[in-house]
């Protein structure tokens, strides 16, 4: 930790951390002045319309752009052939596992062959978007169809069509985790239980789709790129590599972002298209994604087929877990897409003290769009898998599902705990968290009610999901070993103006999380200042020197910690200046309620004092500073998390199923989450609400679908059902607080937890309701049609 001179004692006037401070972001969004990427208009701006493949797998045999070029308002029509490798190379990703034989080249537009419906093949640049759209219809592309595979488990079969010719199989990698001999443990176990689960493809579907605006300046050979992204510096680096431009000639600016949820982390083909086109045309070029382009081109998440085997003794103690996962990567590797299934495997043992694991994860190419980071990114898949399996094991063993969990939980005295897949959990108390959820919902009383209702023929059930996840990407050296090409550390610069106002730079990029407020809470508290004297800057590579962005619920634990360290350094320097002026040892200087004075000589006793603002002025004048001290007040704070944090929680759902329609209604929903300390409880609650809504969406409604021929079937909000207000239950949320020992703030992360709890809780509730009806298994989403069909099948 920072070894400066913190002064004798500090009493901070303002303590904002832990309070529900109102968001300073709200006014602009409430008044329609939020300034999203599409709101930016540049002089001479051109508009791009992308021509896309209607085929999931085909060879391009010819492209005729002449009609499109002749259309009104068209400035240029480009295909891949118009750009050299130097102008626009393959799209760079952030995570290639060392066991992968590289990744298939993915260019901004397909070169010879298309691999999924929606892959860009040409672009029309015109004076207006409407004219670009008109002309895009006139681009004539000839295709020769090729065989198609869309399902990951089918794609690994020997006779499956090959998605990429350069490989001999569609399996990009098989990632193994765990040690020991599962078969040996299983041979000695009283019970060996197996289940197959599908964690279906879902889609973040932020309400703002993607928008990219590139502005190349020939006079300086520089590029300004406006993009709603969760990580400006990662985009800048990747663009520099793709476009062969010096990194410092690229500025990436992210204005307000209309939701990200993991889908706005990577560089997409259209980003490269507008940059390359702007460089060629020397005019700004903008592309605005339609919702149907969003569903076919923007990465989705999940899409795992999982075989889970548990080996348990007669008491229900689980001794080993074996999992084989077929993870659908899509047609290419996008961003962090390849790594997500592999880290998912590290969480397969969940909250349970399971001695051995044997995990094999198959990353598989198919003729579908790419999968990637989506809220939870690997942990929802893991939690669903272990929580579904343990419920079914309980049924098989005839042991109460709550009791079975108690017998297997990792105990509080076991932390830090390394699970059988190599992941270390920092702190936790899973049983206390579960008990709180059970108490909140009135579990035993609900069980009695359910028994009574069932006698009346009602189809009701209750389910629980207890999860642990990991946040705050950590252990840099380990990450590098597994091919993760991003930083785990964050830096923050806290700079004070001559008049004592504070600006905090952070390398995270909010998409609604409220960082401008929460980071200001941390820094204002550390400096003892009014929060209105602290401004937070993010989302611009010109004003923030570096950052790795907002993902993995790391913003508070990583950037918040860095900001706190930087602010403390500023306070320490201010204390040294004050000590110099007060002619005292810095160890005798007290910083109390925003005022520096000498210990034992408080202002009330007529002692000499300096306010923070006065110290700022003196620091900037620079004429009366301790010998050798540089003028001004500006400090860099770095935080590199030594380990991941492990948030956890217990969610309970009470459901009823309509026997006539199969519709599932959630009667009660209780979520008890533990994210460690909370910077702003109201923002935490908001994150839980939103996450649970997306988790309920996955459980009941959402599924991104391709038919067997590779045609997408869910290309609008008419087909892809995100929950609406009337489909959401009242969320009853609460917390336990187990501070993380990993960072000084004691925070774990809350951005994704909400999306992790609902699928197991709801699936277990639905199966609890359906089991008495004779239904053995249903996969998500529990749509009326699927549930109704299961009821009919069981009744036969």
């Amino acid at each position, binding site marked *: 930790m920072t070894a400066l001179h913190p002064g004798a004692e500090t009493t901070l006037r303002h303590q904002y951390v832990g309070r529900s401070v109102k968001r300073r972001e709200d006014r602009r969004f409430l008044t329609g002045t939020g300034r999203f990427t599409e709101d930016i208009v540049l002089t001479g701006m051109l508009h791009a319309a992308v021509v896309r493949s209607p085929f999931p797998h085909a060879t391009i045999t010819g492209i005729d752009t002449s009609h499109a070029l002749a259309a009104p308002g068209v400035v240029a029509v480009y295909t891949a052939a118009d750009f050299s490798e130097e102008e626009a190379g393959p799209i760079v990703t952030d995570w290639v596992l060392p066991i992968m034989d590289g990744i298939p080249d993915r260019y901004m537009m397909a070169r010879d062959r298309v691999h999924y419906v929606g892959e860009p093949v040409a672009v029309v640049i015109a004076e207006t978007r409407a004219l670009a759209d008109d002309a895009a219809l006139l681009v004539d592309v000839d295709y020769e169809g090729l065989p198609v595979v869309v399902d990951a488990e089918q794609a690994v079969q020997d006779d499956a069509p090959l998605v990429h010719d350069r490989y001999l199989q569609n399996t990009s990698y098989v990632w193994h985790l765990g040690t020991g001999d599962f078969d040996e443990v299983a041979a000695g176990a009283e019970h060996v239980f197996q289940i197959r689960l599908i964690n279906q493809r879902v889609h973040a579907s*932020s309400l703002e789709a993607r928008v990219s605006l590139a502005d190349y300046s020939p006079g300086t050979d520089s590029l300004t790129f406006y993009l709603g992204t969760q990580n400006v510096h990662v985009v800048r680096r990747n663009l520099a590599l793709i476009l062969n431009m010096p990194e410092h000639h690229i500025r990436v600016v992210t204005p307000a972002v209309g939701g990200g949820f993991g889908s706005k982390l990577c560089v997409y083909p259209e980003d490269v298209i507008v940059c390359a086109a702007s460089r060629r045309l020397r005019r700004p070029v903008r592309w605005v994604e339609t919702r149907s382009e969003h569903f076919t081109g923007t990465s989705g998440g999940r899409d795992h087929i999982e075989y889970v085997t548990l080996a348990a003794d007669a008491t229900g103690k689980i001794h080993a877990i074996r999992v084989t996962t077929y993870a659908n990567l899509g047609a290419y590797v996008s961003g962090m897409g390849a790594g997500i299934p592999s880290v998912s495997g590290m969480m397969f043992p969940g909250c349970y003290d399971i001695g051995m694991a044997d995990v094999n994860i198959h990353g598989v190419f198919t003729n579908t769009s790419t999968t990637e980071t989506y809220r939870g990114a690997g942990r929802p898949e893991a939690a669903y898998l272990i929580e579904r399996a343990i419920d079914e094991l309980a049924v098989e063993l005839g042991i109460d599902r709550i009791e079975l969990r108690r017998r297997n939980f990792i105990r509080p005295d076991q932390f830090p705990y390394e699970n059988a897949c190599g992941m270390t959990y920092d702190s936790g108390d899973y049983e206390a968290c579960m008990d709180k959820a059970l108490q909140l919902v009135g579990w035993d009383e609900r069980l009695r009610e359910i028994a009574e209702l069932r006698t009346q023929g009602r189809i009701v059930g209750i389910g629980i999901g207890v999860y642990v996840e990991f946040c705050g990407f950590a252990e840099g050296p380990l990450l590098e070993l597994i091919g993760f090409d991003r930083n785990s550390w964050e830096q923050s610069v806290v700079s004070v103006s001559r008049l004592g106002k504070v600006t905090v730079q952070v390398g995270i990029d909010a998409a609604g999380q409220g960082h401008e407020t929460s980071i200001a809470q941390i820094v204002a508290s550390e400096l003892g200042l009014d929060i209105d004297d602290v401004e937070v800057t993010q989302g611009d590579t010109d004003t923030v020197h570096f950052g790795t962005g907002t993902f993995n619920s790391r913003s508070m634990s990583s950037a918040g910690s860095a900001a706190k360290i930087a602010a403390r350094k500023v306070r320490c320097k201010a204390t040294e200046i004050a000590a110099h002026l007060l002619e005292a040892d810095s160890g005798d200087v007290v910083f109390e309620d925003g005022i520096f004075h000498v210990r034992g000589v408080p202002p009330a006793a007529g002692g000499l004092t300096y306010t923070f603002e006065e110290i700022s002025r003196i620091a900037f004048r620079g004429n009366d500073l301790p010998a050798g001290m540089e003028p001004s007040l500006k400090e860099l704070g770095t935080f590199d998390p030594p380990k991941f944090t492990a948030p956890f929680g217990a969610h309970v759902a009470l459901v009823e199923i309509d026997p006539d329609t199969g519709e599932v209604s959630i009667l009660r929903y209780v979520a008890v989450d533990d994210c460690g300390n909370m910077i702003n409880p109201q923002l935490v609650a908001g994150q839980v609400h939103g996450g649970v809504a997306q988790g309920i969406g996955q459980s009941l409604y959402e599924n991104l679908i391709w038919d067997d021929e590779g045609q997408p079937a869910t290309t609008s909000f008419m087909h892809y059902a995100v929950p609406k207000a009337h489909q*959401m239950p009242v969320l009853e949320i609460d917390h336990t607080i187990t501070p993380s020992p990993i960072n000084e703030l004691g925070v774990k992360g809350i951005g994704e937890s909400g999306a992790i709890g609902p699928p197991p809780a709801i699936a277990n509730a639905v199966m609890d309701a359906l089991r008495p009806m004779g239904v053995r298994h249903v996969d998500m989403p529990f749509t009326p049609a699927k549930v109704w069909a299961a009821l009919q099948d069981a009744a036969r």
Partner: protein
Amino acid sequence: MTIRYAERSAAPNGHDEPAERISIEYRLNGRPVSACVESRRLLVHHLREDQVLTGTHVGCDTSQCGACAVRIDGRVAKSCSVLACQVDGADVTTIEGVLPVGPGELHPVQEAFGRHHALQCGFCTPGMVMAAIELLESGRPLGPQEVRHGLTGNICRCTGYQNIVDAIVELSRDAQA
């Protein structure tokens, strides 16, 4: 008001003729507007690009999400599904026009949304506010279920709706008191 469509030319690409333009006059946020718009221009694009009122957003293109909601003659309408030429003679209000007093002031619905943390990324918010204002103007008491059903035309992907519902229910309760 007659909506005419531009004649298509017989040229192979079908787009040689410039699209027809139509003159319209209407009131926008209380002020008279005269404009000449392409016959096919959507109201949302006219508002965002010609009138530079970018608070109205496009979220889905297919009138599911309500991010583009504005009020036309008092009724909430999805401006992605209305042609600009259709508002000739109408009274249009966008999020920029809901302020009752002036700059610095917020509409009670905006205040309540802020108080309840009823917005996160803010992209759906203008449409939500427009929908909430119309709901509340009905004057009938709104319980959570009425509010939830009243918001089926608006998608929010961030908040799970809970705080939005709470904000509107509170305003309705206060109005009844």
